[in-house]
């Protein structure tokens, strides 16, 4: 049950068979460049890599599509926000040349409008921002789709996280079906009574949520008392420093190879990023220059250092 909540499917693929530490290393190798890189060309290549490794791990493209659909309103907000405020808020990341005007978001003459000056540059900036969100979310989903909850706690033990924390997390995973049944039970019971948490007023919204949240929490408090008694009765707490474990994880050959590849990937990525800075193509300029060149908007000096035309 807890596996289903994460989207984990116990399959026999290369990524499923890796050590959880390597899976986390994959997650960070994919998301750290997404944070440090800005240009949509690099980010889109990274996104394609994530989709490809998701395919190798037999992640369903339908599920991925569903996540993207779930993200769509936030992405749309990001797009509109950056189109509206690019000119007034982006200063240093803006290229040295004049922006290539395309159209206004609100073209009507009214008060401070026409406003929302959309340019090739603002579109590229918004594209990069959207790419980044998708990469971070999909990398997280990928990590959880190939890592079982048991692996996650084994990883924490290996990282020498105190046993009290790993025990609590283990208990939580084991307890998820019970908590889920409790939560759905309360929500369904309240819905049967006509409960609905929808309102534009935040105070009303919180007030409407209370009939569901209060019974869920009070039941949880009672359950926690019983659980504590069950844990105590099994002798928990005796010398937590020298606990033994039924299953321990170990690095194998494929883990070392993959880990070395990831280190190389990060180093090459950073080297490309540094080279792009040196050539003046970093920070959205590379994609912008290509698009302007393709649209015939200039500057014609695509290969000119620092792009100053």
């Amino acid at each position: 049950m807890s596996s289903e909540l994460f989207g984990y499917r116990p399959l026999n693929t290369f990524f499923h068979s890796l050590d959880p530490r390597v899976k986390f290393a994959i997650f960070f190798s994919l998301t750290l460049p997404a944070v440090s890189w800005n240009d949509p060309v690099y980010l889109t290549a990274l996104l394609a890599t994530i989709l490809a490794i998701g395919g190798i791990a037999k992640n369903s493209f339908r599920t991925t599509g569903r996540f993207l659909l779930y993200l769509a309103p936030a992405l749309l907000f990001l797009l509109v926000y950056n189109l509206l405020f690019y000119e007034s808020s982006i200063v240093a990341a803006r290229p040295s040349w004049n922006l290539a005007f395309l159209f206004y978001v609100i073209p009507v003459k009214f008060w401070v409008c026409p406003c929302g000056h959309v340019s090739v540059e603002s579109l590229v900036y918004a594209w990069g921002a959207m790419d980044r969100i998708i990469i971070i979310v999909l990398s997280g989903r990928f990590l959880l789709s190939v890592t079982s909850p048991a692996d996650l706690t084994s990883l924490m033990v290996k990282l020498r996280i105190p046993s009290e924390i790993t025990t609590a997390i283990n208990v939580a995973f084991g307890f998820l079906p019970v908590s889920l049944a409790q939560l759905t039970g309360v929500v369904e019971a309240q819905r049967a009574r006509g409960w609905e948490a929808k309102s534009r007023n935040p105070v009303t919204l919180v007030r409407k949520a209370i009939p569901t949240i209060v019974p869920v929490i009070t039941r949880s408090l009672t359950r926690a008392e019983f659980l504590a008694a069950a844990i105590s009765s099994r002798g928990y707490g005796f010398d937590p420093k020298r606990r033994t474990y039924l299953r321990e994880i170990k690095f194998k050959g494929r883990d070392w190879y993959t880990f070395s590849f990831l280190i190389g990937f990060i180093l090459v990525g950073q080297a490309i990023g540094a080279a792009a800075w040196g050539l003046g193509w970093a920070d959205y300029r590379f994609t912008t220059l290509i698009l302007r060149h393709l649209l015939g908007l200039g500057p014609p000096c695509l290969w000119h250092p620092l792009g100053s035309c």
Partner: protein
Amino acid sequence: MMPRKPLLNTKQISVAAVLGGLSLITEAFGLSLPGYLPGVNFNLVGAYLSIATMAAGPLGGIIVTILDSFTSSVGFYGLPFYWPHVFFLALFYKRIYSMKSTAMKVVGYWAVTAIALFIQYWGWFFLYVYVFKFATTIWPLAVYNFVGVIPYATFLAIYAFIPGFVLVTAPNFVRPTWNFPYLKWVTAASIILSAIAVASQAGLR
């Protein structure tokens, strides 16, 4: 050799586990209050992490945030940005709990939560500006959340209303029997780190 003293007792472990599990499920099923931003909702993790911090100390709150991050859309990157709130609440909680007057307890709890939430917010601004690059400076987010009042007020209600209710109606459950070493210094360090992070994103880039 003497065995080391457990960091959490069984009751504290089970409170953190049950509330963390609930938080994880709530996130996984998208059970949240709509209206923060288009496509972004008010999540309910605040209620769970506050009760866990009250009953099990900062470690309890941290466990809830770890479990929540498994299904949160922000993922593991959001994890440390809850911690200044957890430490700040824990720092003042014992004093609030020991107040004799119920009304003073409630007022004190809401006041400490309001400050803790205000501190926590800046870390999240850093996350949205530096990591997600939603905007290039923290100020539009600060204006939206604090000048706009509604987002801050709604989150404050989530973080304080139900935990405050639990504090008044089930005081034995949230009795602070926990201890956390160097809490004052850890809290100060987390606030200073948040301040440095947010200051780095305060200018126009």
